[in-house]
């Protein structure tokens, strides 16, 4: 059984539903009066696949203009980015595009990109064309999902897609630059230990797997 631990960043304009989405997934709840995020919020969650376990460390960033300068702090070491927009607001799709440009420019490592069009429940007010999104997603090597956090449609799939993406990254060519943490519990001494994994142990294990560890921003 292999465990992959990846960092995920949620990017997108204010009010597109980033916080709602992660809350739906992690806490299984939806709050109509969710506050705009101030700064960023941190979540963790784990997905169990047939032969692997994927642990996510998710940064839910704030979409408001004034926090824009903080974003690099969260995407710099991310292994996956959820690029979220609101299908009823075209300019939120435009701003996703500028996020992608920014990511391409500033992030060296390979990143799993997932384009998410939210608020599918408001499809009759749709302003962003599905086909256009699909084409755009293809052009940047992303997968595309349309979801409704409100109706809980498609949220699971987005996280599933991300975990498959990360898994693929982890088993990909060895020269891919990635900060993914991979550890294989079958060969591990610490398998049954109660001691929490320290950063040091993880780094060593990554070396054992031949994957370069970039220094962490936050630790």
């Amino acid at each position, binding site marked *: 059984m292999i465990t992959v631990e990846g960092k995920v960043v949620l990017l997108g304009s204010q009010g597109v539903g980033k916080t709602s989405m992660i809350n739906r997934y992690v*806490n299984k709840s939806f709050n109509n009066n969710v*506050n*705009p995020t101030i700064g960023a919020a*941190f979540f963790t969650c784990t997905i169990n696949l047939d032969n692997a376990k994927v642990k996510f460390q998710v940064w839910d960033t704030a979409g408001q*203009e*004034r926090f824009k300068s903080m974003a690099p*702090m969260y995407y710099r070491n991310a292994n996956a980015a959820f690029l979220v927009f609101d299908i009823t607001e075209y300019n939120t799709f435009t701003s996703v595009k500028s996020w992608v440009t920014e990511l391409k420019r500033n992030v060296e490592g390979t990143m799993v990109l997932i384009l998410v069009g939210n608020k599918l429940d408001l499809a009759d007010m749709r302003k962003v064309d599905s086909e256009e999104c699909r084409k755009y997603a293809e052009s940047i090597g992303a997968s595309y999902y349309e979801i409704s956090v409100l109706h809980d449609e498609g949220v699971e799939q987005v996280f599933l897609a991300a975990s498959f993406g990360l898994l693929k990254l982890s088993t990909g060519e060895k020269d891919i630059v990635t900060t993914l943490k991979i550890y294989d519990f079958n060969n591990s001494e610490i398998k049954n230990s109660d001691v929490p994994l320290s950063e040091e142990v993880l780094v060593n294990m990554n070396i054992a797997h031949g994957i370069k560890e970039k220094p962490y921003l936050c630790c």
Partner: protein
Amino acid sequence: MATKDSASATTSSASGSTATATATATATSLRVEDVTVESGIEPGASAETMLVTTDSLEEFEQELSSSIDDRQMKESITSTISDIQQDPVDSPKTLAMNLEKSASFDSNEIDELSQQFGQNSLDADPLKCKVWLAQKKHVFVLSQAGKPIYSRYSSEDKLVTVMGVMQALVSFVQAGNDMIRSVHAGDTNFVFVVRGPLILVSVSKTLESVPQLVLQLTYVYNQILSVLSQSQLTKVYEQRRNFDLRRLLTGSERLIDHLLNFMDREPAFFLSAVKCLPLLPSMRDAITQTIVQTCSKIKNLVFAILLANNQLITLVRMKKFCIHPADLHLIQNLVDSSESFKTAESWTPICLPKFDSNGFMYSHVSYLAEDCQACLLLLTVDRDVFFTLSEAKQKIVEKLRRTNCLEAINESMNKASITIAEIGLSEMRHVLYKCKSTAQFWSPGFQPPYTTDEEIQRLLGCYQCLHHRLHSPSRPLKLIFQQLDKETMLAWVTSGFELYVTFEPLITKTDAINSIGKLLKWIKKEEERLFILNSPTF
């Protein structure tokens, strides 16, 4: 500085009627020494304090003593945050530098967006709406160029004309090298505060005094600074006088809304003090020590603050630095208005205007546990230490759980505050007690007749009037004894404390004095539970 009065010629804004004035006069015959407290035992007093002790009128005095020009110059130029960061320890890239970058905007983009904001809400003209007109206290914020920024009860872009008039008034008086402070018309007070690039206006039919309204507007200004910081605010207007600040404040209006409601129901603001969650001293010490021990090795951690039900459980600080109650109130406002802190760990930039109005601190915000809804804030000047603080928080919670501290916190949070009746003081109903040396206050639970929101509001209004009269800039008083229709009130300020007491309407002076003596003895006996008497540091 003259007060510009268009409707009435008085400069005094005290709302006391003649009846209350006579009552005050008779009160002078009441001698302070009659109250049986031995000197030197002000309950809750301590030589150590983690809070900056102040009078809430400090703002008003500042406002009065500074001229337009030097106020704008004076907005602090020092930076506490970079001082901390520049401590010899290896300093990471500073916050200030990153801030510079964030303030550059493309002005075309800005215009486009502000137009969108202007167009989207099309509700009716508030000036024709009875409900709107009947609101007791309006608050408006606009730029010096007259652009609407905030309105308490309606979308501000419906009020372009009204705000235009306000701006015209301010600049007309400014042109004469003077400053408009307040206008009194009938039962309505119009109070103006000009701060940096902003104009703040309160239109109030409440009994609150001008200094109290100024204080509230200053809080609103500080709330805006807390979101943007002084340097960013100044910068955007330097770049464009016509800037539409709503673009940077979107999502923060709710903080101002909440703050204004908070100030209407919380005496903490006009008292300039903080209330503590009652806890056994041994428990509070254990909690404090847990935080100190867990965090002592973390560099650049400035404050650790633990709040529950808006009350302070403990506050640990970096040596050298105290926190101003006004900054703590903004933090309380943030926590109280943000449900989402309950669902995840947050990494929140916040500017504390009294601490350093030009920079941001980063705050790790989280609730202790699902089963213990106390909120822990770890404030640092280092923006890269989220995971260090997150780990520290986990350790703190584990330890607190093992030592039964979480239980103790829960128990106190779930217990209704003790009432005066339960303390056993007959004829007394309610009280506010502020210990000056620690900037902390205590108040009991409300008991009949103060059980409805309306009655509670009215009572707080009475306290505010008393507060104003004790601290009246022109004629401060030491003692007020006031027999009113529904209650008798006493206010008393000494070098150690401020006391506001509500009695049954027909209480005699002797009985009032006796029961205050008993009350002070009770507070003294309980002081270790009700107040934080030390000032722990990392």
